[in-house]
């Protein structure tokens, strides 16, 4: 059972993710340089937050052509677990592993703050230790997190229960005021149809220890570790 954190030029949350996996949940983890062309031996691949390739062209638009992404696709297709956080979510959308796109925040500002998230589905290896409706406090830090997709795709996401996290207020209500960036349907995170690829704009790796103000994100990594332990036992 092994985690890999991909490092693109411009990634800046790679060390945070590495720290949480190695020190907080105590699992083996490696950094994976974006030039690498094999994921043999890995069970989970994390695409971390940051500004890969300086966000040139569009966030994630250049990273999706990097050598590692050419192996992340077959890795995901064969059931490997892929977690995209912030810029990682943008890369997953740009590469077509998740539907939709992340546009400039409606405020046009870089938003860096704690937000509340409602867990909408626990039917994923990433969220099975949460409860449906649970309200989490996790920070965001992005300029382009405004989720958009066409009406048909939105309908499909809703029908297939693939919206995993939504922005909400403290009580768990899905209000427009609680939506920091203008995302469609308050979407903060979605998964693919097979439920092994998750992308979210908030940073669970920055909310995994009490000293950082919240440890609500830690459960996501515990869920992954437990899902993997069960897979390896079978």
């Amino acid at each position, binding site marked *: 059972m092994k985690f890999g954190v991909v490092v693109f030029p411009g990634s800046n949350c790679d060390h945070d993710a590495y720290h949480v996996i190695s020190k907080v949940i105590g699992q083996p983890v490696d950094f994976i340089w974006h030039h690498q062309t094999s994921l043999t031996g890995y069970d989970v691949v994390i695409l971390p937050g940051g500004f890969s390739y300086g966000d040139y*062209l569009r966030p994630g*638009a250049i990273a999706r*052509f990097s050598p590692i992404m050419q192996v992340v696709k077959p890795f995901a297709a064969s059931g490997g677990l892929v977690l995209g956080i912030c810029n990682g979510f943008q890369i997953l959308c740009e590469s077509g592993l998740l539907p939709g796109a992340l*546009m400039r925040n*409606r405020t046009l500002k870089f938003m860096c703050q704690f937000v509340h998230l409602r867990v909408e589905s626990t039917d994923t290896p990433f969220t099975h230790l949460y409860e449906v409706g649970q309200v989490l406090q996790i920070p965001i830090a992005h300029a382009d997190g405004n989720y958009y997709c*066409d009406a048909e795709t939105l309908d499909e996401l809703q029908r297939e229960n693939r919206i995993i996290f939504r922005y909400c207020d403290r009580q768990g209500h899905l209000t427009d005021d609680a939506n920091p960036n*203008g995302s469609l349907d308050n979407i903060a995170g979605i998964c693919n149809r097979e439920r092994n690829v998750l992308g979210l704009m908030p940073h669970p790796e920055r909310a995994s220890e009490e000293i950082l103000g919240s440890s609500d994100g830690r459960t996501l990594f515990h869920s992954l570790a437990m899902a993997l332990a069960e897979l390896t036992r079978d």
Partner: protein
Amino acid sequence: MKARIHVTLKKTVLDPQGQTIHQAVQTLGYHGIEEIRQGKYFEITLDDSLSREAWAALMDKLAHEVLSNPVIEEYDVALEEEP
């Protein structure tokens, strides 16, 4: 030969940057401007190894695959002979 490629947000997609520019422009006293939509412009210099038709097809592919995100954007490709 040059390829000039414009990438813009689809009409159905909100353009908050364009709206903000529009508001600022109105504040400055420019009247009669109904809408501003912001986009990107790429000027690409081509050699003569391919025919005009072949370059047009290749630039269309490039605009679709790389320069635009078809989920939110549309593009326009124009080829021009250099003087």
